[in-house]
């Protein structure tokens, strides 16, 4: 019970202090909408609302990726700099509980980001044919792995600007290598192994399968690989926190 009280209050504090702030809410809404409009204008030389479905997997994946990675990295680096993070490290709760609470805020923010383009799309196309269970699972797993990547950055960064720089350093290459804009099969051969080392590749594939029916890998395999990524990243982050933050 005591652990749950601490977990819930860390999560609540993060949501109130960071994620529910106007700049972040507006980012969460404007970013996916801008990408949707940009892609619609780009595709077929003019606005074609029926293309929205084809854009959804990419938009959702990107929204989650951008929403989660930088937010968690920035909030943790910010708290570390102000030393309020020490308060969490000194609380009588396990490191995994504290990390899970911090991750949960960013994951929820990622989920919110992911469904902004869905809500937008629902006004124009019929979304009933989509496998929503798989979509939810895919978005959740993308949010978890992206958030953990954000945590990995937070452990390495000392300043907020470093966290932002590191986030962009891996986020943008990831976007082009995960099959979002170009199918992995059309990438140069030497880049393909890198694609398969990125969790977003499996998340995008899972979303593509659920929304468009064009997944290249079996959904179960994608889910399993994403789970493995999540476990490995969580363990590695905890190890890094113990090594770098408890000196």
């Amino acid at each position, binding site marked *: *019970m005591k652990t749950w009280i*601490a977990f*819930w*209050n860390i999560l609540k504090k993060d949501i109130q202090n960071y994620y529910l702030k106007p700049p972040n809410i507006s980012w969460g809404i404007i970013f996916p909408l801008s990408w949707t409009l940009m892609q619609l204008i780009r595709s077929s030389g003019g606005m074609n609302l029926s293309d929205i479905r084809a854009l959804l997997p990419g938009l959702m994946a990107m929204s989650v990726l951008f929403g989660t990675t930088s937010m968690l990295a920035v909030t943790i680096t910010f708290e570390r700099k102000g*030393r*309020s993070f020490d*308060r969490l490290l*000194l609380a*009588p709760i396990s490191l995994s509980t504290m990390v899970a609470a911090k991750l949960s805020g960013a994951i929820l923010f990622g989920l919110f980001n992911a469904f902004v383009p869905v809500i937008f799309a629902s006004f124009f196309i019929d979304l009933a044919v989509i496998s929503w269970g798989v979509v939810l699972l895919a978005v959740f797993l993308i949010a978890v792995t992206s958030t953990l990547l954000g945590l990995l950055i937070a452990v390495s960064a000392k300043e907020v600007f470093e966290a932002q720089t590191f986030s962009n350093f891996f986020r943008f290459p990831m976007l082009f290598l995960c099959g979002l804009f170009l199918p992995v099969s059309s990438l140069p051969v030497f880049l393909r192994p890198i694609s398969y080392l990125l969790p977003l590749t499996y998340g995008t594939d899972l979303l593509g399968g659920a929304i468009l029916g064009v997944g290249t890998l079996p959904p179960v395999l994608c889910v399993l690989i994403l789970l493995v990524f999540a476990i490995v990243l969580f363990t590695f982050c905890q190890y890094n926190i113990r090594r770098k933050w408890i*000196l």
Partner: protein
Amino acid sequence: MSTTGIVSVTNLSKCYGNFTAVNGISFSIRRGEIFGFLGPNGAGKTTTINMMIGLARPSGGSVEIDGIDAVKNVKKAQSIMGIVPDESNLYDEMDGFDNLCFCGSLYGMRKAEREQRAKALLSQFDLAKAGKRPFKAYSKGMRRKLTIAAGIIHRPEILFLDEPTTGIDVESARQIRHLLLELKQRGTTIFITTHYIEDAERICDRIAFIAGGNIVANGTVSELMQSVSHGYAIRLTANQNLEPLAGDLQQHFDGCTVKVDTNHEVTLLCEERIPLSPVLQYLDGKGISVFEAKEIRPTLEDVFVNITGIEAEKLKKEKEKGGVAK
């Protein structure tokens, strides 16, 4: 105050590469006492406190808190600790009340309990009116008081305070000393690090001096004073230049040494307490009126300077750097 130990630190050390920040120190803290940990900047105070509270991993040695191995079982030990770091580490965006409630929740306190306790603490720390103000709008003294309140919201058995009066105004520093004494009366054990020697002298039951990562002295204030006490010293202030009389005075009062402080001031250093009237009569006979005769007792600062060899001037500069408290 009980004589049973609540904290036992044995051969504790911390190395960063080739640099030894803390060099195998040992000490114990009795239940219900205020234990001062004094030393100049860089002496190893914060490293020691960080190892005790679980923010740093010792390179060697052990820390036992209320029978719990605080190195191996750090989370269990943290549940009975209250921690007040040298810099206020609460959340700027949250108000005072919410900050306290959040800190209570980290120790598993239920909503009603932590809200009630937060209200009581805001009152006790004279912050009730500021309870709904964001933490970032607090003055330094208020920030420090709220940080202490956050450290005790869960009623810890032992409270660790790192430099609690550094950088705050005189009134706030006085209030904090008063609050610490109140906590002690209620049975809380307090471990305090400071480089304000006067603070330690006023409130600590026992003190350990640390310099260069080593504990160079450890004892009660009076025990430490005795180590530098060289008998009886009395300073005389007169209406005339006393310098020409220094030799005569020394001859007349056998066993005393006369030290000329200024033209009008001399200090008599004697092995034992001497009556004042013969001195005054002697000077009166020489046509000199004594305006003031004051016994000079060694201060804890004298003990510190004597033991560590750190010059008083350097210590003063550190205090000035540290803040304005006093």
